[in-house]
């Protein structure tokens, strides 16, 4: 089985899209993460849901998780308001952590095998990888999710 056979349609977001809208899409459509594309339309990085969550929380709660206990219930419920007015670009890992080489991006070719897809997913710690046309790396055919990959692999095992 090849990657394009597992690929399913998946929305992509651009760097300048509204972060709140992108997060809402993540929640409404039950997506495991966001595929962020660069200005040329090529997949740049996959932000897993947990990463998006990280950006909704203030950094100081990352520094000291005990501070999360201090919030009253109504304020705790509204923690996503920190995303208001921010672009997806602002949720991105800082430049030094962005993939510098093509092989570090969560991308597979349409004709890659399941092991190749699993290898990229595992190496990138990403629950989603983008599947691109081998002749046009900026054309995203779809994505392979961890759920779909494991389902296919277990069926053959």
């Amino acid at each position, binding site marked *: 089985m090849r990657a394009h056979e597992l690929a399913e349609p998946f929305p992509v977001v651009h760097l300048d899209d509204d972060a709140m809208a992108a997060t809402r899409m993540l929640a409404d459509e039950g997506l495991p993460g966001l595929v962020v594309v660069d200005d040329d339309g090529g997949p740049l990085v996959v932000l897993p849901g947990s990463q998006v969550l990280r950006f909704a929380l203030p950094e100081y709660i990352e520094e000291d998780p*005990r*501070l999360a206990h*201090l919030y009253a219930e109504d304020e705790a419920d509204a923690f996503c308001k920190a995303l208001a007015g921010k672009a997806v670009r602002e949720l991105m890992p800082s430049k030094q952590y962005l993939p510098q080489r093509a092989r570090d991006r969560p991308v597979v070719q349409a004709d890659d095998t399941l092991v190749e897809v699993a290898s990229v997913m595992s190496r990138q710690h990403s629950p989603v990888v983008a599947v691109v046309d081998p002749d046009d790396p900026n054309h995203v055919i779809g994505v392979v999710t961890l759920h779909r990959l494991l389902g296919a692999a277990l069926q053959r095992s």
Partner: protein
Amino acid sequence: MTADTWQVVAAVAVFAGAYVAIATEWVPRVQAALVGAGLMLVIGASNGEAAFFSEDSGIDWNVIFLLLGMMIVVSVIKQTGLFEYLAVWAAKRARGRPYRVLVLLCVITAVASAALDNVTTVLLVAPVTLLVCDRIGVRPEAFLVAEALASNIGGTATLIGDPPNIIIASRGDLSFNDFLVNLAPVVVVLIGVFVLMSRWLFRASFTYDAQRAAAVMALDERRAITDPRLLTRSMVVLALILVFFSLHTALHVDPSVVALLGAGVLVLVSGLSSQEFLEDVEWETLVFFAGLFIMVGALVNIGVIEYLGEQAVDAVGGRYLLAGTGLLFGSAVVSGVVDNIPYVATMSPLVDDLVSSGDGSTQASSLWWALALGADLGGNATAIGASANVVVTGIAARNGYPISFWQFTRYGLIVTAVTVSLCWPYLWLRYFVLA
């Protein structure tokens, strides 16, 4: 140990090279210290026995294990949520008024720095400060800078408050009470002066918004304490450690032994995993100290320190006020530019010679306090002068509030100039006029 001339030259060159590498941060300080220590062994300026077993020219295990013990104690106390509780309690007591919040946070930081150590204290206080500032609608930079400055001032008061004090205590055979009696009084005055200065220094950051201030009152500080039993046990053990530190003269138990026993008891009663109670042990710092001690010990071994000590004794010639003045201001200047730990490690054997030459007189002993005050308070001068400053600017940057070197330094220089200057009349009056 008798040394050949080439060994002396080589040892001094290795020491100077390592010192420059540490000061300029060309390489991580732990690497510089370890390479320097290794080279000292290679050239024969030190050997295995001297480096690992000699009290005078080897690793000072009292310092290493005192630091290790206190780091474990702090790791456990950190789990209790005490600092989060205190900071939010302070912000609520201040009714969200920015200056009052800053004063209370600085006082808490200073006291905690004296009882634990200043680096850990700012690590614990800074995140909750960001939360409080977020609530009261003020930018946090001034609050974080003020806390770093307060932690360095507060840490000066005790033997365990600042790493240079631990080195001075070990080398000068000074007790916990010696530090309390000689340094705490002036530190209390300095903290008072500092919080008054802060009203002017950070005045641009005190914009009061009644509506935002009300938001801080919605925080529930009691929820920070997730394990009251652990808090109670930790406070009892910390109190016992401090009591045993202060009973050193009567019980003759070294502070390192007290800290290790206290850490052991706390580990037993806390029920925490080794990963949790070792979380805040800064292994790099401990290895850095070990390398540093071997390097300085090598200079002792080959007679360089003895030679410099004789020169210093001749130059001072009983003029201890002049020597103290030079030590106080000179240490402040040097510590503002380079890490105060290697500076104090190097200066301590020299000061020891000077104090010994005064036959234990009060005037001669005052040189220890001049060194401690100058080195500890001098660390406030620049953003890289003390570890607490580096920690705070790092946390600020990660949270989107970068504090530039000069932004920190323009406050630090003023505070250092005022606090160090105030120490001089204290030393003069206490050890020369009223002694």
